[in-house]
């Protein structure tokens, strides 16, 4: 068991290294131009957002619509730390993530009692509150946007490594006794409590870790864009992240990674459809809810993939 786990990890790291090497090579060879390297950076940021949201919404099973809010807290906090405190980039990034995490705990304690639709609405409201606060504070420069905090010499590697670390940490959480506790809450909260799991603690823990990495993604986004406006982090962004998680499969880490990458790159090819994107997201979410509610998942799976046993997601 131990050997297999270490082997899997090593293989995954080698795969990450190969992908990294390939991208760096293509960049230096000029095949990947400035425009496309920007898209790859956004893909890394979206991977962080999707995998971290998957912990709260997939593994823990709490559908939330406030992930962009936590991203916003991370983005502004780290930008302000760089701008006014002149802290080095990585330290600002960390402080931004911790701020998002703390806000996550603060929001989580009263709201995680709620379920389903109620939690969705509350987190959506939180998302809007954060946006309005960022819009009206003088320190964030409101709608005019915050600028001048960008650090020099931060290249693609930082974004890529951040994404790898996020995936690794979430994977480790899931594969521990803590992760099993989190998944058991999603499966049956009462049975989980009656198996001795402190469910409130683990709900907040999963929520806090999820918010922490949303904060990391926010800080990276700020650094990449060089300018922050509150409207970037509205509920449309939260919906987009949730769609990535739902499309990739709730509680499926690989799925989240692939969905995040595809959903970053695909729109570049489908510029003509840009106006219909939100419409499409809505349809995807509604379909996903119906499939989940009616438990059609296994039936659809067995219809399309004629394999004998339904694979256990990991």
């Amino acid at each position, binding site marked *: *068991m*131990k050997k297999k786990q*270490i082997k899997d*990890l090593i293989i995954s790291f080698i795969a990450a290294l190969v992908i990294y090497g390939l991208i760096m090579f293509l960049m230096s060879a000029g095949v990947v131009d400035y425009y496309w390297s920007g898209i790859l950076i956004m893909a890394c940021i979206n991977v962080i957002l999707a995998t971290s949201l998957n912990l709260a919404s997939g593994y823990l099973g709490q559908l939330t619509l406030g992930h962009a809010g936590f991203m916003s807290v991370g983005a502004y906090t780290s930008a302000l730390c760089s701008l006014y405190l002149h802290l080095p980039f990585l330290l600002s990034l960390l402080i931004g993530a911790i701020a998002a995490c703390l806000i996550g705990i603060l929001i989580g304690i009263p709201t995680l009692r709620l379920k389903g639709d109620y939690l969705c609405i509350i987190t959506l409201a939180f998302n809007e509150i954060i946006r309005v606060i960022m819009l009206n504070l003088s320190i964030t420069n409101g709608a005019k946007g915050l600028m001048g905090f960008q650090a020099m010499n931060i290249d693609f590697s930082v974004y890529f490594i951040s994404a790898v670390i996020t995936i*690794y*940490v979430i994977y*480790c*959480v899931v*594969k*521990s*006794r*803590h992760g*099993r*506790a989190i*998944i*058991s809450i999603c*499966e*049956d909260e*009462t*049975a*989980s*409590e*009656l*198996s*001795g*799991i*402190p*469910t409130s603690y683990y709900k907040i*823990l999963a929520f806090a870790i999820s918010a922490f990495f949303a904060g990391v993604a926010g800080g990276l986004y700020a650094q990449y864009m060089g300018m922050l406006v509150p409207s970037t982090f509205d509920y449309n962004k939260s919906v987009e992240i949730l769609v990535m998680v739902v499309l990739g499969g709730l509680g499926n880490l690989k799925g989240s990674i692939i969905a995040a990458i595809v959903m970053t790159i695909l729109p570049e090819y489908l510029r003509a459809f840009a106006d219909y994107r939100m419409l499409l997201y809505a349809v995807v979410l509604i379909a996903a809810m119906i499939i989940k509610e009616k438990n059609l998942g296994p039936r659809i799976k067995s219809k399309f993939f004629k394999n004998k046993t*339904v694979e*256990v997601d990991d």
Partner: protein
Amino acid sequence: MSLLKAEGLGIQFGGLKAVDEFNFEMNQNQLYGLIGPNGAGKTTVFNLLTGVYKPTSGQIIFNGKSLLKMTPTQITQLGIARTFQNIRLFKKMSVIDNVKVGLHHSQNYSLLSSILHLPSYFKGEEAMHEMAMSLLRVFDLEKYADVKAGNLPYGKQRKLEIARALATSPKLLLLDEPAAGMNPIETEELMETIKIVREKFSIAILLIEHDMKLVMGICEKIAVLNFGTVLAFGTPDEIKNNPDVIAAYLGNEE
């Protein structure tokens, strides 16, 4: 000192007194039965004992402590574990992971040590794996360790639920109709397993069961519940010949 003592326990749902003036006492390592007609309040008693419902009156003392202000999690950690009438496994998790959820508190490695893959993480996981496997072996489930719990046949799901409950290392195990849906051979097996479990883990067991052969066969004492109150309490022979009990059962059959 008794292990479990319920005094004047009661709960009301709207106007319905589901359990009323329930008095009950159990000691270490005893095997008792709780029987009664449908809707008598048996499952509700379990829900009260495990903190799923808060009683509207009465007191529960377990191991010298009052359970009234405790959450289900705390009560489980204190040593009461249970199974459910309508099986409640973590269906999408593997069989062994179900047991490992029950074993959660048997290890205490931190989240940080699992992220850094420290030796304490591997040691803890290894120990947990061993404990889970030996529990599965008691119920002949070891070959299904990696199967999704929801894919197990019904009888085995019931056994897995008992294994998961035992994983929390309880002092008192509450079984809610463990033989429901089992055929006579499986029921026979289950009777043996329950006896073994009680000796091997030296715990007290309270079981709700409609299968009279099973209850009369293994329980030392039986409490009969009717309309939420204890109608009779005694050895299987006493219960069998109690006119009140016979009346309650026959009266309910129409």
